[in-house]
């Protein structure tokens, strides 16, 4: 039941997108998101759609798997859609039901906002699906390393991030296990009103928190036993080195942004 959450999950496959340097993928995702917000009008969206479609195809991640990640934001999506649809003032009124009116501008914004949100999620989940959590934090650490000069603890932040990411599947599994164990003792997580349901969660949450603390404690101990003492002077087993395909990928990104900007200016 909890296995359906794909946000932040890695999908193992052999593709050029998987092999790319994580720094490229991170900047690429940011570039794509920035591109999405620069778009004005449908030609830009067509360009973004083509770009995204090609990326999904070469990532070799099944399309169904990517779409599943959208389920979690479905409600947000719906709310945005409804609000934009009914509350945007415009010149021409298309439909009017009681006090709610749909204007041409409202329809236009609602559709484009929804598309933008969907692309946002797909774009960023494509990055996490093709990059292992370790690579991701490695990339982030290297990209943010200039901030060390102004005393931002970049290494510590990225270490915390990678631990947090690493623990998501573990805690999900643990939740599943404890849930089943309590269900075997007759617990009911699906019925009753809101207060009743919240109360029913106690037998799940208490053991979950205890196990999370226990795991954190064990991990801290194991790290200390291996003489971990922060990022000072720490070297890497697999340092990030750009290959030719990475420069090529940067080229494609620049091209994509150029197309988006050109479409914005010209049309």
């Amino acid at each position, binding site marked *: 039941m909890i*296995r359906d959450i794909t946000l932040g999950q890695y*999908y*193992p*496959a052999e593709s050029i997108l998987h092999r790319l340097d994580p720094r490229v993928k991170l900047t690429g995702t940011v570039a794509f998101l920035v591109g999405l917000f620069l778009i004005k009008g449908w030609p830009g969206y067509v360009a973004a759609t083509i770009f995204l479609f090609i990326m999904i195809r070469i990532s070799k991640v*099944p399309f*169904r*798997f990517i779409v599943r990640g959208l389920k979690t934001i479905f409600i947000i999506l719906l709310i945005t859609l409804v609000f934009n649809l009914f509350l945007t003032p415009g010149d021409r009124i298309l439909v009017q039901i009681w006090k709610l009116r749909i204007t041409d501008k409202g329809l236009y914004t609602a559709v484009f906002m929804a598309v933008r949100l969907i692309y946002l999620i797909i774009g960023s989940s494509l990055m996490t699906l093709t990059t292992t959590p370790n690579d991701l934090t490695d990339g982030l650490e290297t990209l943010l390393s200039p901030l060390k000069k102004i005393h931002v603890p970049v290494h510590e932040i990225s270490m915390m991030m990678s631990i947090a990411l690493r623990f998501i599947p573990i805690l999900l599994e*643990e939740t599943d*296990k*404890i849930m*089943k*164990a*309590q*269900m*075997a*003792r*007759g*617990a*009911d997580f699906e019925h009753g009103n809101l207060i009743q349901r919240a109360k029913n969660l*106690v*037998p799940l949450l*208490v*053991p979950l928190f*205890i*196990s999370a603390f226990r795991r954190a404690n064990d991990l801290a101990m194991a790290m200390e036993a291996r003489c971990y003492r922060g990022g000072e002077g720490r070297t890497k087993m697999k340092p990030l080195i750009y290959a030719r395909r990475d420069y090529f990928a940067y080229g494609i990104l620049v091209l994509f942004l150029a197309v988006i900007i050109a479409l914005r200016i010209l049309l």
Partner: protein
Amino acid sequence: MSIVLEHVTYTYSPDTAYEIHALKDVNLEIKDGQFIGLIGHTGSGKSTLVQHLNGLVKATSGHIYFNGEDIYAPGYDMRKLRSKVGLVFQYPEHQLFEVDVLSDVCFGPKNQGLSQEEAQKRAREALRMVGLSEEYEKQSPFELSGGQKRRVAIAGVLAMEPEVLILDEPTAGLDPRGRDEILDEISYLHKERGITVILVSHSMEDVAKYVERIIVMNQGEVLHDGAPREVFRHYKELESVGLAAPQVTYIMHTLKERGFDADEDATTIEEAKETILEAFRKKGKKI
């Protein structure tokens, strides 16, 4: 009264890169009052199998009948099934959550709809059964030792008075003494109450001593199903799937190979002793 599994197949995360066939066409009948050992290597599907028996996991295909009723039939009361088929998970001490031992053990009976007094009565009985005296009742379950915590957790399921008790590796991580105590208590329960017990384990040694029937799982399939002595005859095959027969089996087979006329099917040390002495006696007569 029995549990019947027909062509049960279960697949984790179907149609993705994570697809795993945990169970493949499993057919079993678990009769009332049996003491069964379910053995298999890590990842052989034994834990998945037992979670099917009380409806926590729904088979991808196939049917399961509890006392003749299809548990996947629409409208079947799963909670009732779960109170009849008690399942003690691996490391059950991780499920404890209440402020004191007694309330934790009461959780199951209360979910069955029993009154506070009745639930407490059952909880006390269950605690006695696992060998925890009255002084523990008001303690926090988190202050107990590992072995005691596990007893509390097992009592939590016993208090529901199930007809079938399934224990998933109840002795994992316990010291030899704790292991023997818990297994002895389970065996006693089986004899006293006549409940069906399914003991999941990967230790043949543990199982050989107690059970009357062994089911061996390998890669989601039932490899062997029979009395311990029948199953251990295939000890070479068991080795090839990462399991082992009890030490006694090896000794008895070696003796047989060397021309010693003892029963090689002995599965416990007691049986081995008897048959070896018997063989000596026979030999003595011949001379």
